[in-house]
């Protein structure tokens, strides 16, 4: 057998291993509700499933949740050591309210008071529409959600309708002025980012035929939509950091002229999740291939060996990234050091560690990473740490609520 043939087999084996691992993570959500056999005999489970494997309205939400599963990649277990407390240097406080997207039969968006986590208002899913994503504007009082029609799991629509809702929050946290924003569009939307001034929405939409994913920006006043697609050829062997195929995490530059896209670019290493890149797209280009109107701001891999970035967001002033990085402390074990760090641009050096913690976890796949959403000043970060949701500023973690009952948070 030739060395070349052996090399090809090994490369394909690596790719197969990655594909199986990623698919396994995606199906985890559906599997994990299963009870132990001693509590529920097999015959009972079969008959109960025959009535309907997955309620239709759950399907798009399960997909949204799967995004979190893929990125988090783990079931985190309890023992958390928070970073040392330091006096806050922030001149103004964190946002007054934050949103959570719930789980369960009727998932709804809840508005919480950030001072104590109390629920002050709700935006329920309807029988016909399911909420799939949410985003906050810089003003701290205006929020958007996207929702898609409830799917029939036996005949899923790969290009469903999608509409956006806007609402405001009063000083006491009540939801007011709930209404449709912009026009209805086509495509399953799992990523949504409102522009800092709340006049435009950026979103990825999936619509079946190739190219499957498109990045869109809608002007809410006119309903006009600009669209970009990736010219990534789809080969697993490409190694360019510009290989974004969607759906990337979106963050807006403060001037509203650019979008930063954070994604996993296509490498062939086993440590595929560490191949991260951030690309800056000039949205004045209106339409066309993403790569023709963008530049790679930063990328990582294959040299990442210690603290590897698994998520990065552009700071509003565009001079740095705030990134979630994880280091495997004990190889094959269950201890992970995680940090929230600032990466200066364009040199890509870590200029500040905003927060650090150690988590002991039972990992079912991938590497655990802090999930974060920054406020408009990039001073306060809404972070999932293990099974807790809280906010971080100046190295200190402020607990808000358990994360287990929600599938996403934003402020």
């Amino acid at each position, binding site marked *: 057998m030739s060395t070349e043939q052996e090399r*090809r*087999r090994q490369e*394909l*084996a690596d*790719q*197969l*291993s*990655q*594909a*199986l*691992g*990623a*698919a*396994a993570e*995606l*199906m*985890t959500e*559906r*599997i*994990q509700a*299963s009870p*132990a*056999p*001693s509590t529920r*005999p*097999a015959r009972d*489970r*079969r008959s109960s*499933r025959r009535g309907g*494997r*997955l309620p239709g309205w759950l*399907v*798009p939400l*399960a*997909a949204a949740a*799967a*995004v979190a599963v*893929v990125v988090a990649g783990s079931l985190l277990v309890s023992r958390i050591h928070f970073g040392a407390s330091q006096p806050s240097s922030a001149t103004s406080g964190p946002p007054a309210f934050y949103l959570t997207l719930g789980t369960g039969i009727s998932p709804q968006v809840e508005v919480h008071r950030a001072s104590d986590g109390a629920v002050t208002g709700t935006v329920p899913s309807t029988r016909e529409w399911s909420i799939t994503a949410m985003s906050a504007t810089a003003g701290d009082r205006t929020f958007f959600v996207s929702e898609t029609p409830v*799917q029939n*799991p036996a005949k*899923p629509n*790969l290009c469903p309708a999608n509409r956006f809702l806007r609402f405001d929050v009063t000083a006491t946290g009540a939801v007011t002025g709930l209404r449709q924003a912009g026009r209805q569009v086509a495509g*399953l939307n*799992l990523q949504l980012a409102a522009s800092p001034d709340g006049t435009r929405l950026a979103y990825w939409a*999936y619509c079946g035929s*190739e190219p*499957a*994913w498109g990045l869109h920006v809608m002007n809410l006043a006119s309903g006009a939509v600009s669209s970009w697609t990736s010219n990534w050829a*789809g*080969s*697993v062997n490409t190694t360019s950091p510009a290989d974004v*195929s969607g759906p990337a995490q979106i963050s807006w530059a403060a001037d509203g002229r650019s979008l930063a896209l954070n994604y996993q670019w*296509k490498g062939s290493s086993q440590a595929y999740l560490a191949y991260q890149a951030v690309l800056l797209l000039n949205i004045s280009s209106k339409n066309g291939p993403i790569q023709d109107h963008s530049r790679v701001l930063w990328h990582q891999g294959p040299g990442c060996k210690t603290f590897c970035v698994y998520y990065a967001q552009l700071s509003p002033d565009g001079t740095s990234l705030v990134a979630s990085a994880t280091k495997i402390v004990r190889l094959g074990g269950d201890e992970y050091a995680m940090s929230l760090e600032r990466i200066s641009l364009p040199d890509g050096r870590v200029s500040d560690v905003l927060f650090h913690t150690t988590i002991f976890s*039972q990992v*079912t*796949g991938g590497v655990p990473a802090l999930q974060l959403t920054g406020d408009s000043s990039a001073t306060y970060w809404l972070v999932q740490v293990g099974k807790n949701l809280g906010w971080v500023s100046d190295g200190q973690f402020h607990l808000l609520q358990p994360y287990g009952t929600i599938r996403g948070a934003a402020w």
Partner: protein
Amino acid sequence: MRPSAEPADDLAGLFRAHHLELVRLAAFVIGDVAAGEDVVQDVFVRLQQRWDSLAGQWDPLPYLRTAVVNGCRSAFKRRASLQRRHAAAAAEPLPVPPLTAEESVLLSEDRRRLLAALALLPRRRREVLVLRYYVGLSEAEIATTLGISPGTVKSTAARGLDALARILEEAR
């Protein structure tokens, strides 16, 4: 992605430690999460009936893997039998990647193609590739699980990878 070696002194502990990975294994082999759950559930129910006589005397994980793979084969045969009874042109049912449409769109295109190609392989090759590159077993462990020789495992894996490459090439 070898399951964690979590100690499991009782059946419930064994279930908690290995259920997820076993269902994933079955789902990849049989092409359906729900059918995979049924296979794994049946394996645990049968194990429950024999638990008192087996507990503490053996390493259960290799047994569980073998039972799950055999359970998948039985499920295939049942499905094929049903198809022969109810369909005019009954070939062996082809498994498909065990993801919903919404889950599939979250995979990159190359991974979708790869999983679709895997589903087209003959059953034995698919079993070997899933055990090797998903579960992470050695050739010797796969040989024990499937009841074949290590040499057969090696040649089956190599042919499986070559077949995958051909399917992907033809689909371009």
